[in-house]
């Protein structure tokens, strides 16, 4: 039973993506939305199974490793699967009504979105390094295609930059897989975990380094973030939401998994190693936030905010000796995923309604589109880490872990980062709350937008806030089966 659950999570999106492709440009929404509902159900069932009987593993089709493919699901992977489906369903409903109005942008959205989700689900369920490479590449290529699908030369340039960055990242990863296989003759994470120790030969250290750099490029950690803002800021709103909320989390998850799993022996022996991603993360927070505060276009602002928010994820690495840091990381992944999807969706509504995407053109938005501004504000509250929100809990856990280990610098970075986030969030809100007399000659005109768009943005924003009131189940799920 549980076997089927995991496999179907990968197969279902592949099936509806293929059908959507065959159905022709712009079609497939009616298939995708129920299928995504079904996927959500499957994940919930899987979560139930895992919390009852612990981590599970299975050999697909009865072929075990090394020639077959092994899948595995533990608390960490189920949590990421859950995040993916929870965001994907409202996003699909949003996208359906978004692309109805403006068809050419969404011609290839549905098949690509399906392949992307199949890749993500596959990645979270994979148990060996090579299979992870394949899914990582599938996710990357689908994401690039989604960015390019908008069709303008601006998007194409962004997509190509993204493509080369992601290929470079996965290329490093692939070389590292080759080195690991050469050293140990296996790519199964479970087998590797006990054999890689601090006394490992140089090639293994090299492989670890290659993976670290490759995945940092793919997660757009400062200073490898250059590709992210144009790609995420340039794509259409549903695509931006998908990329910012979910895609970058995949490579982060992989890095975390490797750090705690196969490479635990190395990372534990080199205690200072964790400070490398953490330092870069801190720089990302400052750099991304400052760029977001200066950004003129609203989607660029949100994209730079993603650069900053990803920084928080990397602050946990020096603290991973305590369970709290892992919890903080997952909570931050959820907080950012939900809030960022909501924020891009709200931005999509604002851009549709005003016909422009400059922050300055938002005056009066709070009057005309109160629901959307409220959604944006709620998502902003999460990103800023103010209570009650998942972002606040993430911050609480992170600071607590940092203080507990005497890492005051991290606590300070988190707090300052929160204030900077408030800077860019309230820049938008401030503009939105400006009252423009309706009779003024230069009063902006607001086009009507489908209410579905507004409500879906609000739904995700509310989810990000409400998770801040109930994080127990999620944290218990993450603790299950341990990540190590």
């Amino acid at each position: 039973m549980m076997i089927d659950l995991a496999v179907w999570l990968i197969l279902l999106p592949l099936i509806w993506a293929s059908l959507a492709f065959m159905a022709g440009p712009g079609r497939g929404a009616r298939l995708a939305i129920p299928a995504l509902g079904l996927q959500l159900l499957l994940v919930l069932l899987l979560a139930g199974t895992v919390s009852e009987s612990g981590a599970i593993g299975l050999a697909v089709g009865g072929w075990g490793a090394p020639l077959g493919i092994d899948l595995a699901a533990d608390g960490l992977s189920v949590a990421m699967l859950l995040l993916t489906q929870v965001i994907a369903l409202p996003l699909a409903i949003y996208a359906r009504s978004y692309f109805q109005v403006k068809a050419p942008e969404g011609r290839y959205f549905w098949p690509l979105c399906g392949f992307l989700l199949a890749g993500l689900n596959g990645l979270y369920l994979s148990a060996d390094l090579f299979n992870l490479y394949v899914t990582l590449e599938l996710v990357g290529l689908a994401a690039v295609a989604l960015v390019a699908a908008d069709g303008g030369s601006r998007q194409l340039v962004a997509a190509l930059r993204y493509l080369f960055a992601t290929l470079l990242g996965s290329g490093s990863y692939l070389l590292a897989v080759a080195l690991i296989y050469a050293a140990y003759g296996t790519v199964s994470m479970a087998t590797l975990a006990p054999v890689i120790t601090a006394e490992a030969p140089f090639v293994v250290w090299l492989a670890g380094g290659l993976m670290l750099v490759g995945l940092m490029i793919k997660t757009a950690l400062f200073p490898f973030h250059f590709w992210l803002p144009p790609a995420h800021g340039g794509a259409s709103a549903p695509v931006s939401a998908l990329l910012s909320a979910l895609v970058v989390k995949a490579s982060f998850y992989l890095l975390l998994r490797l750090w705690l799993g196969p490479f635990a022996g190395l990372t534990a022996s080199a205690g200072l190693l964790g400070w490398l991603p953490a330092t870069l993360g801190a720089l990302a927070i400052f750099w991304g936030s400052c760029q977001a505060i200066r950004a003129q276009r609203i989607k660029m602002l949100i994209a730079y905010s993603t650069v900053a928010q990803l920084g928080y994820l990397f602050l946990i690495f020096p603290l991973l000796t305590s369970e709290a840091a892992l919890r903080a990381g997952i909570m931050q992944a959820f907080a950012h995923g939900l809030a960022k999807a909501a924020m891009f969706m709200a931005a999509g509504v604002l851009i549709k309604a005003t016909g422009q995407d400059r922050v300055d053109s938002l005056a009066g938005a709070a009057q005309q589109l109160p629901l959307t501004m409220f959604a944006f504000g709620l998502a902003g509250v999460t990103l800023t880490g103010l209570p009650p929100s998942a972002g606040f809990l993430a911050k609480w856990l992170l600071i607590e872990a940092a203080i507990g280990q005497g890492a005051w610098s991290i606590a300070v970075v988190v707090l300052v980062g929160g204030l900077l986030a408030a800077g860019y969030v309230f820049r938008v809100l401030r503009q939105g709350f400006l009252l423009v007399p309706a009779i003024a000659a230069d009063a902006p005109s607001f086009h009507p937008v489908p209410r579905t768009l507004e409500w879906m943005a609000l739904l995700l924003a509310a989810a990000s806030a409400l998770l801040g009131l109930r994080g127990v189940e999620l944290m218990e799920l993450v603790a299950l089966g341990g990540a190590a």
Partner: protein
Amino acid sequence: MTLNEALPLAVLASSLLPGLVIFLLPDAWTGKRTALNLLGAFTKLVLIVILLVGVHGGADYDFHYAVLPGLDLVFKVDALGLLFMSLSAILWLLTTLYAIGYLEESPQRSRFFGFFSLCVTATMGIAMAGNLFTFFIFYELLTLSTFPLVVHRGTDKAMNGGTVYLVYTLTGGALLLIGIIWLHQLLGHSDFAHAGIMADLEATGAISGGQLKMIFLLLITGVGVKAAIVPLHGWLPQAMVAPAPVSALLHAVAVVKAGAFGIIRIVYEIYGIEFAQSLELLLPLAVVAAVTIIWGSLKAFFQDDLKKRLAFSTISQVSYIVLGVALFGPLGTIGGLVHLVHQGIMKITLFFCAGNYAETLGIHKVSEMNGVGRRMPLTTLAFTIAALGMMGAPFTAGAISKIWLIEGARAADMDWAIWVLWTSSLLNAAYFLPIVWRSVFFRAPLAWPAEHLSRYGWRETAWLLLLPPLVTAAATLVTGIFVTSAFSPLAWAQFIAQQEYGPLVP
């Protein structure tokens, strides 16, 4: 869930739910919105009366709820919390009435009242918080829900005021947060308890007094921003751009009181008054409060803008509460606690009156108030009573606060504090009496700056604008005269002090 667990939640829900529904109502549905507002306000009052009776009888109202493993949201209704809750609930009702009159026909009323209700919900959460984690959640929620109120007018000036407000409060919040987490990390919890929770910790010897002092500094700075302690007060005069009901609510009840209330909780129920005294934390706090009292009064003296003058007066008056807390001994505590209520009643009266002047005649400055007493006698009467109360004139609520504070200072051997209080009273007189004098005895101008509402019989302005200040002015007198009744703020403050100091309280 038992009834005693559900009651705190019901108190929150009585303003949260109407607030959320109001957000969705179209602006034109004045009747339905008003009905919802009043329903919520009265329900809350009833619930609080039930709680008052219960707590007086020794009942426990406790609600625990796990947010994260090892991290609980805790609501607890105790005497101290109820003091703040009763004040908020009563003044919420009056301010709502006032706001309905004030905002008639202005845009975005549903948004205004929605956030207004959220604001009160946050205040209730602060009052009922059973640990610092819960306190912080509602403390920040208060910041978030007041921001849209401060910038409600949507002008550039409002936005700038709102931005200053946010910069101060969010930075304060960040400091508070780090203090709370540090404490939580050391103790494993941050529950409020009578006589504090820190004393055992130091006894184990694991933590140095220096660390505890550092945490104290972080916590007090964090809540001190909202309590507008000098030099953290810069936001308050800027926030005066808000509509009058917001100023009334912010300055008399919600924001500054939340800060002062936080200081009380931290000193009494986290550190414990005796432990705080042994760490030598109280004297610096008293000095800061004294500086704030004098500084606020001095600045108020030089303001021509009426609301700004009131704002600086607030800065000064709120620190009376802090001073009372910092005076080691039950008398000072009682003085501080009772001033929490008294200052609220008096200051909200003043802001209601200022709003009336502005809304009726377009008067915003002290220099424009010549002869206004003849045009608006009732408003001016209310203003005068409240101003006299602020000075500490006999038969007003302010006198009671001042007597207990002075006695407290004497008992604590801090005679300099008595001088501070007397100086402040003189300064209060110096900036309030000329206003009263001017409005009563000066000749009225030929035309008011902008007369929005004309006189109708003896009703000098709209009903809903006139009623609330009269009620609160009357309350100023009633609480000042009937101090000995069982449910007066003073009696309740004595009840609280008894719990903090044991049965030795006079």
